[in-house]
């Protein structure tokens, strides 16, 4: 009997089909979860376009761009990881997962440095919020959404790092073969999803009205 097939499934194919569908449905829930924040952001940006543009210019676009590049590279290493799992190359898989984790950690490091900068500049919404320009209240709404959206994204990155750790451990125990690597594939789906969220966050938050 194949030990990688759980008792409720008839065969490995059915199990793989179920797991993959489950992951896609989970990602659909995630889209709706982030969707609520994107909706709030859109509504307030439409209500206060000037305040949002002014607030956006206080974000560090260089760090944001670097982070985007870092994250896209991590998607590449993740995709290579899935490819190595298909080939059954255990060492390559562990290496790719490790690189993905490293890039993820770099992203989080830069993100938290940016948060620290905002803290130094008094741009954390709430009682400590200081804003020299016009309409500080409406401007603080931009930063509320900046922190909630990037914060939720960072939380998903941290969960992703946890998943990667588990995948590395499983790889080192030799649990994946060219015929069974579903967890790697699903971890990859999750990681790519989190990247795509950032691909939307970056222009919406950092690149408002850069031409003026």
């Amino acid at each position: 009997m194949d030990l990688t097939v759980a008792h409720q499934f008839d065969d490995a194919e059915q199990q793989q089909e179920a797991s993959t569908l489950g992951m896609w449905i989970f990602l659909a829930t995630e889209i709706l979860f982030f969707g609520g924040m994107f909706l709030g952001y859109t509504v307030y940006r439409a209500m206060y376009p000037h305040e949002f543009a002014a607030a956006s210019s206080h974000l560090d676009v260089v760090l944001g761009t670097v982070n985007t590049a870092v994250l896209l590279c991590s998607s590449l290493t993740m995709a290579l990881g899935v490819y190595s799992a298909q080939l059954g190359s255990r060492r390559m898989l562990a290496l790719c997962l490790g690189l993905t984790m490293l890039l993820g950690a770099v992203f989080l490091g830069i993100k938290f440095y940016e948060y620290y900068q905002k803290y130094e500049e008094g741009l954390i919404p709430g009682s400590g919020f200081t804003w020299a320009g016009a309409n500080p209240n409406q401007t603080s709404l931009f930063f509320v959404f900046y922190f909630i959206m990037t914060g939720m994204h960072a939380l998903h990155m941290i969960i992703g790092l946890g998943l990667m750790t588990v995948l590395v451990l499983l790889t080192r125990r030799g649990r994946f073969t060219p015929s069974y690597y579903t967890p790697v594939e699903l971890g990859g789906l999750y990681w790519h999803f989190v990247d795509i969220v950032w691909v939307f966050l970056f222009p919406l938050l950092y690149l408002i009205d850069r031409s003026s």
Partner: protein
Amino acid sequence: MSTMPVAIYTREHYLNASYGWKSWLLTRDHKRIGLLYLMSITFFFFLGGAFATMVRLELMTPKGDLFEAETYNKLFSMHGIVMVFLFLIPSIPAVLGNFLVPMMIGARDLAFPRLNLLSWYLYMIGGVFTLWAIVAGGVDTGWTFYTPYSSLFSNTHVVLTVLGIFVVGFSSILTGLNFIVTIHTMRAPGMTWFRMPLFLWSHYATAIIMVLATPVLAITLVLVGVERIWRVGIFDPAIGGDPILFQHLFWFYSHPAVYIMILPGMGVVSELITTHARKRIFGYSFVAFASLAIAFIGFLVWGHHMFVAGESQYASLMFSVLSFLVAIPSAIKVFNWTATLYKGSVSYDAPMLYAMGFIGLFTIGGLTGLFLATIAIDVHLHDTYFVVAHFHYIMVGGMVMAYLGGIHNWWPKISGRMYPEGWARLAAGIVFIGFNLTFFPQFVLGYLGMPRRYYAYADEFQVLNVMSTAGASILAVGYLLPMIYLIWSLKYGPEAGPNPWNATGLEWQTLSPPPPDNFEETPIVTEPAYNYGPDRRTSI
């Protein structure tokens, strides 16, 4: 399949396969998890019922003499929160759905048994947070948590409650995800989509709502929590926030959630009607697609909660039209159930009584929904007792009737024993009478202008309010009775045998209680659902 009952004590089944706390608390068997849910939601049902009792007691007299105004606000809030999030949403899906979805498609378990167990733990953790908030002094925002009152002004335990509901939401997402994947990938050989019992279609539709709507509630509650903890004013008009945005986000979940609270009931009723009228369902594919249509349109009607909240007129018009559209698939179901009864061999067992009660009460609840979807009438009826009566006809008259009918219908399968039929019919009658006496006067009260959520009212409303309170006490008896005789039947009920109703569903083709893996061998399906015919009528 042998029709000889196999003695419950002498063979292995899911209840006696292992013993001890650990075998239950760490179980991955969908049937045991269903029972864990049954016990937990029963607790919350009676807790929510206790709050309702106190509300009705206060409303016996026009003056606010039993409770303080603030206490009353907490009572109706906690009644709503407990009943909606901790009872109604998980009720049929998490208990009967958990138990029956794998059995009805001929599978050994749900696709993700560990996630299923996790969903129960999340439910319990969320329940404990909510209980903690209640014990610590409660919450007074209503179950809707409207901002900016909930986020900036209320002095009660909003954050704790919101956290509890946030966590419970994930249990509902996991249940929905499990159902969708299971129905897609784990059907037995021959079980095509259009051979599935309609219970599965309605659970599939419910699961779609759970999966797509609940995350929006989650993020909305996060935003409320953030605003309340850090005082940043996301929904506070004083600093440029938009309270209507909260209502849009909240109802984007909560209106579809209303259909989480009725679709599973419709699935149960389709089973009860066919089983106890011994007839194939009238218009199978119409009933099946009506479930999907309700789920789909249900996502597009949320704005009808905001007709008087400052939503644009054009938006209101669209939401009004879309809300009318929900009536079409709902009516299709009601007509098809009724047509199924026609020339059926109807037996008036307790499950059938509940199903008939469902059809009548759901029809009243649905039709009064059309009143409220009409913008001009809604301006008159908004926030009155008419609305309260309307949604109780759907949620209690519909969902709770279906839930009780379903519990009775599948009790022989769950426990292996029959419930006492005479008592069960009596209880069904008491529930029906008590329910109507409680809630019909509220339609009148609301139309006359009594607002909801006030602890005092004008003197001329007292007669109808006393009727309503009297009805509530009858209803309470009707709810307590089944709990007593069902527990009694666990020990003293006669053994049911595999198929006491001589029904066609796969769940009846295995032993009662089922073996741990449900079926001794994977069933092969060769006929459509509800294939009742003359030959089956006499086979027991």
